[in-house]
């Protein structure tokens, strides 16, 4: 794991990123998210379903549907993808910021060969002929661990196994050496045995290419093994962020604590989030004050503030990068259990 590189320009910088889905009942899916992702580092975004992880990812790459109103900024290669014109965003996608989706079978074009899809992605950003692009496709397939890539390059997605498909999709995402790669639950759809291989591939690529990797996951075990930094999201906001070491060892938010406690053994093979008591809040039904207060075991101790006052992310003593948004831990450490 690399050391924090705060002095270096982040590869992806989110500031006050806010996403509101319109309609009769507007839903604020993402609410004022600030994040820096640095080259060569892996940032994990975790949180329950509906907490706004995917919306954050899609806003970062400028691919939310027209029904979403996005404010704030998402800066990649000096361009703010929130305010930039589409003509400015298109050339950045794939070359500076790329994305890997959860379900590779759905995310690959069933009518086109794997090789065609990779070389098309390459030719969008490089003026080369088809032969050169195909050579590049074989090279990238080899890099992501597809055996016999010269032959497999002409296969269709349905001829690949689940794990190989995910590798192929990673290949289309990294073919242009992006500076930021967002992987939205890249292993959720895979067998447990294959999950680890794909994660190893992603972290290997992060190191080799010096990419910044944003890894969206439900799985705190994955976070422990692969991520350098973590951002915990609840109801569209980041409630705790810092290095994985800080957040796991000096947890400063009751929600993070609950997530960790719901994960019985970080080394066990199946580590999906077990349920946390209470109903998850979302942008649609955000409680007043701290959104976590209806489920928080410490809210009573704090008193009224939890129900009325919005806690802000504040740095933990001794570590400017470890921040949490909680009235309780602003005053004291979370008690050990």
């Amino acid at each position, binding site marked *: 794991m690399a050391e924090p590189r705060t002095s270096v320009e982040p590869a992806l910088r989110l500031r006050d990123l806010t996403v509101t889905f319109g309609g009769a009942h507007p839903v604020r899916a993402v609410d004022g998210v600030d994040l820096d992702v640095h080259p060569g580092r892996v940032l994990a975004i975790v949180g329950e379903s509906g907490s706004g992880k995917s919306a954050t990812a899609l806003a970062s790459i400028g691919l939310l549907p027209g029904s979403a109103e996005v404010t704030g900024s998402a800066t990649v290669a000096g361009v703010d993808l929130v305010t930039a014109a*589409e003509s400015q965003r*298109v050339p950045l996608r*794939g070359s500076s910021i*790329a994305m890997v989706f959860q379900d590779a079978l759905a995310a690959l074009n*069933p*009518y086109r060969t794997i090789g065609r899809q990779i070389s098309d992605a390459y030719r969008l950003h490089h003026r080369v002929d088809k032969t050169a692009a195909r050579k590049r496709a074989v090279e990238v397939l080899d890099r992501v661990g597809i055996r016999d890539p010269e032959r497999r390059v002409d296969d*269709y997605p*349905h001829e690949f196994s689940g794990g190989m498909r995910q590798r192929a999709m990673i290949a289309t*995402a990294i073919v242009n050496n992006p500076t930021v790669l967002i992987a939205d639950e890249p292993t959720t759809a895979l067998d447990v045995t294959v999950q680890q291989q794909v994660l190893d591939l992603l972290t290997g690529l992060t190191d080799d290419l010096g990419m910044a990797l944003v890894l969206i996951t439900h799985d705190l075990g994955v976070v422990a093994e692969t991520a350098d930094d973590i951002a915990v999201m609840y109801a569209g906001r980041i409630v705790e962020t810092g290095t994985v070491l800080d957040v796991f060892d000096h947890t400063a938010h009751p929600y993070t604590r609950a997530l960790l406690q719901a994960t019985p053994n970080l080394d066990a093979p199946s580590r999906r989030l077990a349920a946390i008591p209470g109903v998850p809040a979302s942008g649609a039904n955000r409680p007043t004050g701290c959104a976590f207060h209806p489920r928080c075991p410490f809210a009573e101790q704090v008193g009224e503030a939890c129900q009325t006052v919005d806690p802000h992310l504040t740095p933990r003593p001794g570590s400017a990068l470890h921040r949490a948004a909680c009235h309780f831990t602003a005053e004291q450490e979370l008690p050990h259990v």
Partner: protein
Amino acid sequence: MAWYLARRLAASVVVLLAISFCVYLLFYSGPSDPARVLCGKPCQPERLSQIKQFMGTDKSAVVQWVDFVKGLFVGRTYGTGAEAARCAAPCFGFSFDQRQSVTSLIWSRLPITASIAIGGAVVSLIVGMTLGPLAARFRGGVLDGLVRGGSLLLVAMPAYLLGLLAILVFGFQLNMVPVSGYVPLSESPVDWAWHLILPWCVLGLINGAAYARYARNQMLDELGSDYLLAERATGASARRVRRTARRSVWVPVTTLFGIDLALMLGGTIFTEKVFSMHGIGDLLLGGVSSHDLGIVVGTALFGAALIIVGNLIVDIVQGFIDPRVRRG
């Protein structure tokens, strides 16, 4: 692919045999006796049995069917001696009224029906694949409303009504195009097309409206799919992604096109009637009104055969455009 083809071919033959059996039973067990029709009134019993023998209707229904199937493959001869009539393979039956094999009757009418059908199918494809994706692109707009409303209207509108309207407006009111008759392509390609323009547009509009609606919905489905989002994430422009989506929409639309074309090749009854063109549909209608069962059964089976062959071809084409079928 070869194995898949062989299986499909075998299945087609079986289906065709089954259909022919049903059609055969249905028509020949009906109240109308072709021999009696031919015999006329008054009809001597000896004459009737002579005719029955000639037609082969003196045998049991199953034997008749076997004779018919045999005729399809090797041809058959009706009657004996000087009166004998030869019906070459594939023999779809015999019109004793016109003393001609149904096959040769169909064959003589086919150019007309084929001209109508192929032109109509091509127009509907053009209409559908132009308007559908455009309606999807400007979803909720004027064109989208027109496509959705228009397709509902046109689906409900019978072809002959639209045909009559077209004749009234473009033929009589505006006097732009001829309203009836057919000119063979070999005689004058310009006149051929000129006479066919109205039927092409009528069929093209009716089927094309259905295609447009289908293509629109399919296009919207495609545009919401993960793989197009993923393509955009690689840096493809919205326009390029729409092109990808259109390619995917061609796959199911080709199926519709193939089946509709086969259906129309079997006879465009109303269109031929309205535009006074003597194609296979007209042949069938004539056969019905003159109680010429040979023609009715023959053209019905010809139509069924076309649909089955059309299905087969569609499946093969699907195999070429959809790799999941081809290399499943």
